[in-house]
Structures are given as structure tokens and as C-alpha cells.
């Protein structure tokens, strides 16, 4: 599995051609949905039938990524006028203007003597008639999909001015079996649902996996040893271990931004308190001290603060404290119960689950509690997780008496989509951009 992360990616020539402060073509991530930018993605050229096949597959993945973002509208290939024959020849921009392509993506797949392939890509601003960026990657043939995601991220970044999120993965809980005896296993897949596979077996129930923002680690809850305990899973070695043999039960783990600590809940004698543990020294320190339920900690991206939920005020609400536990203050004051706060990787917002009037909603608010916005609501929407660029939120949705599925929605509240998973699925966690 780790082969995929350790693929031999080499930037053989960083053919960056005058990447254009003056380029006119631009998508606004806040309002782009209203009028998605038409983009032409040509099937990548290939010198052999096998290379042509890969070239078509890469273009397909890029088109799907751009389309799913809802900021772009890939133009139907049947409308293309110019047939790109060689990467070195500049495109006939007039032919692309006629079909209203604002941006043009072309590329090429070349087999290398050592068995690898080289993938070249270029992005053009059609109306400015200039190349915005271009890259060349050498990689193993089975790694073409990741290159397609990296190319998608390049396009997204050039055209929106923001970082992309396509070269990332989702870890989640795969669900099967009857509701009274649900089988829950960790599964991981690419951000677009490709390459799903199990990380744990069917015997031990697992819940709430979370990626480290900076290392190849996952933390999650497992009933493997009987009582619920926090586990660590190393994606590079495929080794898993109990994080610590604490009294009582431990759950609700989340990494600090640098991956060196885990904040979690330790419940002894029916009193849930938040702790953090240093993963090197295994020293733990207690952050809350209250007979109420204190759980669901999530670090701010600079590591200085932690948001969490507590029912100390009489009902479940969202709080913020300094990373050492000082300065605890409530930030949610709307109607209903507020839960599962998750700090945005940009730092400017906290996503949450709100329970109100018999329905569950996903929303966001600023870290001071202002600017609350509900993005989506149903019988049960729960457990938001942020895309690495903080523009998309994934969560799980359960219809009444139905199995859970993964969904995503943009920060704008638009572009609600179901994410394809091989089984019912819950508790999604988005990885950072892959290294």
C-alpha cells in the first residue's frame, strides 16, 4: 500500500513558463459555482496504444475532479475543433475561443527505457493566448492516477489562486451487517473514491478515524481489547498500536497540527475529560476538570488553541480553550445542541454538527462564535471533516432507518454530493495533501 505513497516521483524538468501574474483567466471560489468556468481537457497524447490509454485515463480523472469541484465545466470533447497532434506546437487559440474554452489542458505520456513513464502537461489561458504552467513527471505506470490528481491540483491552483485538494485521501468507517450488529472496519480510499481498501478486519468495531495533518499516521477508536481505546495506525509500516493503556475508556482522538500529540477523551467512572498525550514521551496532561461531559477536542492549525464540546452549561455546546487548558469559554449560543467541532485548516472557521428540532445539520462558525452558517441539514448529518484547503466539507448522512453514506458540500453551502463508497460509510476524515 505504501508503495503508492513512496512512488518514485521525480520532477524531471520543472518547465515553468512565465506563470503569469497578468493571466486574465480566474475563478472565484466563493462564486464560481454560479457560472463554472468552461475548460477543455484534451486526452493526453501517447506514442503507443498503452501510453494513449493512460493518457485518456489521466484526462478523464482530471475532468472528473474539475467537474466535481463545481468551479469548472469540462467541455464535451465532441465540441473540440483542433485536434492536438504534438505538445511542442502551440495550440490554435482561435479554435478554442470559438467553443468558449477559457482554459486548455493538454499533455502527453511517454514510455521511458527503464519501464517508467513520463507525463507532461500544459495549461493554457486561451484568451490571453499564453501558457500558465507546465510540468513533467516521471513515475511508475501504476501511479498515473496520482499524477492526474497532482495535475488537477495545479490547474485548480493556477485558476483559483488557492491550493488544491485532489491529491488526498479519505479514511472512514466501512459499515455492513444488520443495525443491531453492525460490522465497522477502517477503510481508506482516494479523495474521489478510487482505490478503496480495508485497514482493519471485521472482528473489532472501530470508530472515528482521523489523519495526522503532517505525518503518515491515523488515530482511531477500537474495541479490539474490549474497552474502547485510542489506537495509532502507521500507514508507512501498516503497524497499529494502542496509544496508551489508560484506566477506563479513551476515545475522540485528534492529532495536533505537527502530529506530535494527540488530544483525546479519557472517561473514568462516567466522567469524560480531555487530555493530550505527547507521542514521544507518552506523557499525558489533563486539560479539562469538570463533572460534565468534555469531549471532541480539535486543535487550531497553529496549535495554540483547542475547540471541544461540553454539556457543562446544561446542554451540549462548543467551547474553545488554550492548548494548555486555560481560558475555557463557550462560543456556541444558537438554538439546539452543538457538537463535533473541527477547526478549519485555514484557521478561520470551526465546522460543527447541530442538533435542533429533531434534525441534524452541518454548519460553520468563526472561532469567536460569530457568523454561524448552516450548510446542510437532514434526519442525520454528522461528523464534518475539512478538505486540505478548507473549501470543502465531507460528512456522513443517514436517512431515517437507512445506512450511512459519505457526502460533501462546499463551504458556500452549494455543490452537495454523495461520495461513492463500496459499502455504507461513516466518520470520514480527509488527509492533508499527500507528500
Amino acid at each position, binding site marked *: 500500500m505504501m508503495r503508492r505513497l513512496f512512488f518514485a516521483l521525480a520532477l524531471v524538468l520543472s518547465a515553468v513558463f512565465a506563470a503569469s501574474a497578468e493571466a486574465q483567466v480566474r475563478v472565484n471560489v466563493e462564486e464560481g459555482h454560479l457560472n463554472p468556468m468552461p475548460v477543455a481537457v484534451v486526452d493526453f497524447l501517447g506514442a503507443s496504444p498503452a501510453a494513449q490509454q493512460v493518457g485518456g485515463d489521466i484526462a478523464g480523472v482530471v475532468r472528473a475532479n474539475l467537474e466535481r469541484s463545481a468551479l469548472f465545466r469540462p467541455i464535451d470533447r465532441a465540441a473540440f475543433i483542433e485536434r492536438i497532434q504534438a505538445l511542442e506546437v502551440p495550440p490554435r487559440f482561435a479554435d478554442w475561443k470559438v467553443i468558449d474554452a477559457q482554459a486548455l489542458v493538454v499533455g502527453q505520456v511517454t514510455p521511458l527505457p527503464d519501464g517508467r513513464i513520463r507525463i507532461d502537461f500544459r495549461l493554457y489561458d486561451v484568451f490571453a493566448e499564453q501558457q500558465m504552467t507546465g510540468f513533467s513527471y516521471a513515475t511508475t505506470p501504476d501511479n498515473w492516477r496520482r499524477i492526474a490528481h497532482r495535475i488537477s491540483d495545479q490547474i485548480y491552483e493556477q485558476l483559483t489562486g488557492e491550493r488544491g485538494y485532489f491529491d488526498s485521501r479519505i479514511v472512514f468507517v466501512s459499515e455492513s451487517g*444488520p443495525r*443491531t450488529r453492525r460490522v465497522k472496519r477502517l477503510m481508506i480510499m482516494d479523495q474521489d473514491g478510487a482505490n478503496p481498501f480495508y485497514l482493519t478486519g471485521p472482528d473489532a468495531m472501530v470508530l*472515528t478515524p482521523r489523519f495526522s495533518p503532517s505525518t503518515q499516521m491515523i488515530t482511531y477508536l477500537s474495541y479490539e481489547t474490549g474497552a*474502547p481505546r485510542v489506537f495509532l495506525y502507521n500507514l508507512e509500516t501498516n503497524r497499529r498500536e494502542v496509544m496508551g493503556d489508560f484506566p477506563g475508556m479513551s476515545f475522540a482522538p485528534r492529532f495536533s497540527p505537527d502530529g506530535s500529540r494527540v488530544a483525546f477523551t479519557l472517561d473514568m467512572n462516567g*466522567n*469524560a475529560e480531555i487530555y493530550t498525550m505527547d507521542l514521544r514521551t507518552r506523557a499525558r496532561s489533563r486539560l479539562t476538570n469538570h463533572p460534565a461531559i468534555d*469531549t471532541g477536542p480539535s486543535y487550531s492549525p497553529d496549535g495554540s488553541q483547542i475547540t471541544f464540546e461540553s454539556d457543562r452549561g446544561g446542554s451540549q455546546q462548543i467551547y474553545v480553550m488554550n492548548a494548555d487548558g486555560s481560558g475555557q469559554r463557550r462560543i456556541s449560543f444558537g438554538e439546539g445542541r452543538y457538537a463535533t467541532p473541527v477547526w478549519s485548516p485555514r484557521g478561520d472557521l470551526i465546522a460543527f454538527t447541530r442538533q435542533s428540532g429533531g434534525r441534524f445539520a452541518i454548519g460553520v462558525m468563526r472561532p469567536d462564535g460569530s457568523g454561524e452558517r448552516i450548510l446542510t441539514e437532514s434526519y442525520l448529518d454528522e*461528523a464534518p471533516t475539512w478538505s486540505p484547503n478548507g473549501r470543502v466539507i465531507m460528512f456522513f448522512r443517514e436517512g431515517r432507518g437507512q445506512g450511512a453514506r459519505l457526502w460533501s458540500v462546499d463551504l458556500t453551502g452549494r455543490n452537495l454530493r454523495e461520495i461513492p463508497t463500496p459499502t455504507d460509510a461513516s466518520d470520514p476524515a480527509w488527509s492533508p495533501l499527500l507528500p
Partner: protein
Amino acid sequence: MRKVLIAFTAVAAISACASRPDPTPTTNTPPPPTQERPQGPVPGSVEDFRVSVGDRVFFGYDRSDLTPEARAVLERQAAWLRQYPNTRVLIAGNCDERGTREYNLALGARRAAASRDYLASLGVAQNRMETVSYGKERPLDPRANEEAWSVNRNAHTQIVSGAVS
């Protein structure tokens, strides 16, 4: 819970019928055996605890305080546990699906602790009792309605060792 009880009663009734002597014996059949088969579970068994005592107590929505009904069940549990002092129990707290996952894990732990603390106050040694929470992960009733949710909010006392088999 009600359903389980009904199901069990039905099974008991069927087995009772099967073992009961023919109600209209003819004169040329031997007289029915006088020795009665035991009809309930074996005293001191897991079944005995489950059926004769009651192994679950129920809670209100987002509550972990014990109702009078819950106390009555726990009092019977405590009496039974005092009578069979070699038994050990695992008390599991459970929640309905109308809460978020991590909060429900904590709420289930509160419910299990409420049961355990009451049993301890009635003389059951702490070291015979362990607790766990399954949150909303192990519903007794799979349906999504008020009736199911009220049944799924419970603390379940399970005999894990020392019972008569």
C-alpha cells in the same frame, strides 16, 4: 426488552407444553410422572439473572439519572448478585441514535456508571463490576422511532463469570 421477554415467555410456554403430560390420558396409559420438570431457568444461571431479575434499566432522552423503575430493577440485581457472590458483571451503557457519536460514548459511560454506583451502594463490591460504553453503536431495537429509541437508551448488566451453568 419487552420483545425479548415475550419471545422468551413464548419459548418457555412451548417447552412447557411439550413436557406437560397429555391432558386427556386414557385408562390404558400409565399414569403421568409425578415429578415436575423445572419450568424456569436454573437459579444462579445467566438466564436466571436475565429473565427472573431483569438485566437492563432504561433512561430518558439525554439522561443518565435512574428512574424509580430502574432503581427497582437494580435492587433486584443487587439482591441476586449478593446471593451469588462469585459472579462478576460487565455493565454496558447504550444510547439511542439521536445524538452524536462521541457524546453518546460519554453518555453511555455515564449510564453504566449510574447503574454501577447504585449497585455498589446496595452492597455489591466494586471489584466485581466493570463498565463499558457502546454509545449508539449497539441498538437493541433497529427501528428508527420513539419506541425503539426508548428501548435503546439503557444500561445492560451482563454476567461475565461465576454463574451457575
